[in-house]
């Protein structure tokens, strides 16, 4: 199953992904309890590719990527949808 993670080399920590994920009650994006307080994605809660809201709102291209492929595409390509619906 495809999953998302945040690439901290690219992420600007603007937290749009956090805001939108809270707003639609998926609550997969959280602030890590570490000194840097980076945003992370809880793969157990994330419903990608069913939801791509964080990808659509993210202003820093390529900072939210698929764990498996390293891709960051909106909307996800058809093969991802097909994989998800199997």
């Amino acid at each position, binding site marked *: 199953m495809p999953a998302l993670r945040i690439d901290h080399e690219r992420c600007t920590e603007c937290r749009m992904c956090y805001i939108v994920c*809270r707003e639609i009650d998926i609550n997969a994006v959280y*602030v890590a309890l570490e000194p840097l*307080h980076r945003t992370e994605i809880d793969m157990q809660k994330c419903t990608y590719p069913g939801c791509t809201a964080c990808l659509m709102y993210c202003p820093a291209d390529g900072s939210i990527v698929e764990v498996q492929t390293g891709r960051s595409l909106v909307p996800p390509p058809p093969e991802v949808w097909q994989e998800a619906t199997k």
Partner: protein
Amino acid sequence: MSDLPGKDLARELIEKSRSESRATPVEDVTQAVRRDGLDGDAAHRLLGRLWTLERMFYYIYGGWGQGLEINDFPPSIKYLFSKQIIDESTHEMLYLDALLRKGFAATQKDAFRHPSGSFMLNSALAYYVFSLRNLATYPHPIRIAALNLGPKILELGWMEGLVEAIPDHDLKGVFESQFVENRSHVNMGRRIVEEFVKEPVEAELCRWACAVAKRDYNRFLGEFSAYVLGREAPAPPAPRRQVTD
């Protein structure tokens, strides 16, 4: 750096606030947690109220930010303030994450609706928030002195005490992880006061604003502690004489 104009004032405000930081109403909560632990309901009330206060900083800083545009302060002041806004939003998010993770609220909307997370006008929390927001009309170094060298130091003090007492590892982490920002805010406050508070009248205003902010913060902490412990909230202070001109 020894000739910075506000150095003595910053030291004075910090030392005074530090001496008061372990004598706030939250000490009752800390003692109760040390004695009896913290049950789920009390933890919910604790996180919910602090989350509500943190949310209100968007409102306070919104007012302060306008003042920064009107007055001519150097970019360093604006940068430090924007960092402080981000930090405050981090704290708000950490509290909300904890509410959701602990199962105290299923969704953000539920957390807003719960009495612990709702903002009420007739409360000490509101009094404190409006008190800070009203500092918007003062120069930025004065209101930063009031908050960062006042309530922020009190908060760091009581939170360090509470963390020692809390048995829950996760909850402890929520508070512990905020120390970095809190210490940073105190240092920002010290830096701004040292560098930008130059005139005796400004120093007096800083002392006054800091005392007012701490008085109102302590009033909030009294209400907050009573709420967490499930006690009757302290009676509101007697109304002051109305000033007319």
